[in-house]
């Protein structure tokens, strides 16, 4: 029962520590809201944002239409057609430069005609109707070129997206024109059938599914990343008040009194760990509620917390233990509250950065991706991703859970030996 009193005492002290409460609850909640809103744009850019494209179709023929239809059909681009009568290359360049559009595409006059001519010549050549001299001539003089103007601030991935989309559209268009030309040629050899046609279209479908069928409609978004990420950050930020609490207890002398009561130092430490573990559950619950109910009010998607409740409990316990272990070590090693809080704040931020809290690990440079494996916040992030996005069962989260609990054990062992060999008098 002594442990219950120790927990009660810790909670009383914590409830009366307004700054500690702010660090434990308000800070992570604020971070969740702010970061989810800030990163909503970039996440949408990556996945669902429509890149604004202005198309100047001077061709006003099949090729220009194919490009317009092709780009409009994808969900990646928001295509506006510029008025060909009043716009020119300079005006399009100016609009892109100002940032009104991310990309400007200019399809010059006669593009379709050139493409058709080239294809017809190639097909005719293949059917032996043209001399090699004529074919050579056509190569030299005829060329179709579509101009693409990028906003200098556009990310490389978006440039690649537009390039791939245009390649696909133009290849399709050229294939269509080639088939048409071939059909015409073939029709000459089958005079009874003037309407000789080869069907054109994709013969291979892309069957895309999530590896976990139940999570088919779920994808990484700002909320799905930031709510668990900043919940982990908040959980690990208990290191600050916990280490401060241990140092204050030592400075104020109450730890001395506890050392004079048989067996109480250990009970007091267990009380602290359990009290702060309880706090991590309250933090987790609060952050999940914010993710599920508050985010939609801010125009963001609601959090999908998965459906593995025992897994979530195990995850929070292991994260809470890892955080309290670190807090106990820092509270033992550092002499003053100021030292511990400065070190802990910087240390947690570094661990958070390399652990993928700020931005997902997969977009980091290779060196940081390798470093992320040493961060307990990274293990925690992976644990939440397993549960939220991959629908993992208990068995699949065991490695991360073991790593976090092992970290807790290692921290306590280090704190124990530091305390044991430290020279001290009362």
């Amino acid at each position, binding site marked *: *029962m*002594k442990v219950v*009193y*120790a927990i*009660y*005492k810790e909670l*009383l*002290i914590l409830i*009366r*520590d307004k700054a500690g409460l702010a660090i434990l609850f308000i800070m992570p909640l604020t971070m969740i809201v702010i970061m989810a809103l800030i990163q909503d744009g970039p996440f949408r850019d990556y996945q669902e944002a429509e890149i604004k494209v202005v198309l100047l179709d001077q061709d006003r023929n099949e090729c220009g239409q194919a490009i317009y239809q092709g780009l409009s059909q994808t969900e990646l681009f928001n295509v506006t057609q510029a008025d060909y009568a009043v716009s020119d290359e300079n005006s399009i360049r100016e609009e892109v430069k100002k940032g009104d559009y991310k990309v400007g595409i200019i399809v010059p006059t006669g593009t379709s005609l050139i493409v058709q001519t080239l294809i017809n010549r190639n097909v005719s050549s293949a059917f032996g109707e043209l001399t090699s001299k004529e074919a050579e001539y056509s190569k030299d003089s005829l060329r179709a070129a579509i101009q693409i103007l990028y906003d200098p601030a556009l990310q490389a991935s978006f440039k690649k997206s537009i390039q791939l989309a245009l390649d696909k559209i133009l290849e399709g268009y050229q294939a269509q024109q080639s088939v048409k030309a071939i059909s015409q040629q073939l029709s000459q050899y089958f005079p009874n059938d003037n309407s000789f046609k080869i069907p054109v279209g994709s013969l291979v479908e892309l069957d895309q599914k999530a590896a976990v069928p139940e999570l088919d409609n779920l994808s990484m978004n700002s909320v799905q990343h930031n709510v668990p990420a900043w919940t982990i950050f908040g959980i690990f930020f208990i290191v600050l008040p916990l280490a401060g609490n241990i140092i204050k*207890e030592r400075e*104020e*002398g*109450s730890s*001395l*009194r*506890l*050392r*004079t*009561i*048989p*067996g*109480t130092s250990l*009970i*007091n430490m267990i009380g602290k760990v359990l009290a702060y573990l309880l706090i991590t559950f309250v933090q987790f619950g609060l952050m999940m509620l914010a993710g599920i109910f508050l985010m939609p009010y801010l125009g963001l998607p609601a959090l999908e917390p998965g459906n593995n409740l025992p897994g979530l409990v195990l995850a929070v316990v292991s994260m809470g233990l890892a955080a309290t272990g670190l807090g106990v070590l820092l509270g033992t090693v550092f002499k003053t509250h100021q030292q511990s809080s400065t070190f802990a704040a910087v240390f947690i931020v570094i661990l958070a950065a390399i652990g993928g809290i700020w931005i997902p690990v997969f977009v980091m440079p290779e060196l940081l991706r390798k470093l992320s494996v040493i961060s307990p916040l990274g293990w925690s992030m992976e644990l939440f991703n397993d549960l939220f996005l991959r629908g993992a069962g208990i068995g699949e989260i065991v490695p991360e859970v073991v790593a976090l609990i092992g970290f807790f054990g290692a921290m306590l062992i280090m704190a124990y030996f530091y305390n044991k060999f430290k*020279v*001290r*008098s*009362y």
Partner: protein
Amino acid sequence: MCRSRKGNLYQTKKNYLIKYLVVQVNNLYKTYKKGYPPALSGVNLTVEKGDFFGLLGPNGAGKTTLISIICGLASATIGTAYMSETDIARYPEKIKQFYGLVPQDIALYPTLTAEENLRFFGRMYGISNKVLKEEIEYWLSKMGLSNHRHKKIHEYSTGMKRRVNLIAGILHKPSIIILDEPTVGVDVQSRVLILQTLKEINCQGTTILYTSHYLEEAEDLCSKIAIIDKGKIIKEGTPAELIAQEQQCSNLEDLFIKLTGKELRD
């Protein structure tokens, strides 16, 4: 005048079984760092059951180091120390049940109330809820704190803090109470109340080991005194005996100055 509290006393069976409650220190040395002078240098000391023992010395004399070793909070470099016939170095946890420490610094949680502090420390000592409630009631009333029981410690005056600090060290009815300058920085009223209480506890048979810089206070309270300086016990005996040994000294302060000198200590 000694007083007993019938029915209110919290006594463990262990306390009845222990025949002689003494502190024995034999040839104790303590060195913190190599090359530095030792904090304790061959200290021998005996505190008998029922003594009100004063350990006096200037700053840096070795009082706190000696108390730390007696309380099992630090280990001696050389020598042995016993409490209630138990080897302190071998059984540091066991001896903790015999004593209560009232440290010089206020060893309480400042954001908890007096009652919450006493309840927590009492529970840690294993005192049952019922007995604890009675004891807290009794001591808060005796120390004039009943009306302030729900105030947080950081809202207390120094005198009030010292009184709660004392209660927290004696709540579990230890056989020996070790006090490190219990009246530093308190007003006269609080000081009188604290000393009166200590006298009463001593009259009930509890041994008291006490350090102080207030020599008049020590002369009045203590049945035995040891003067320690530079890690050595330089005089030991009853206050009257010690004063009588030095012809030019009319009180303990004269004796103290004569033995330890007028050189300032930091």
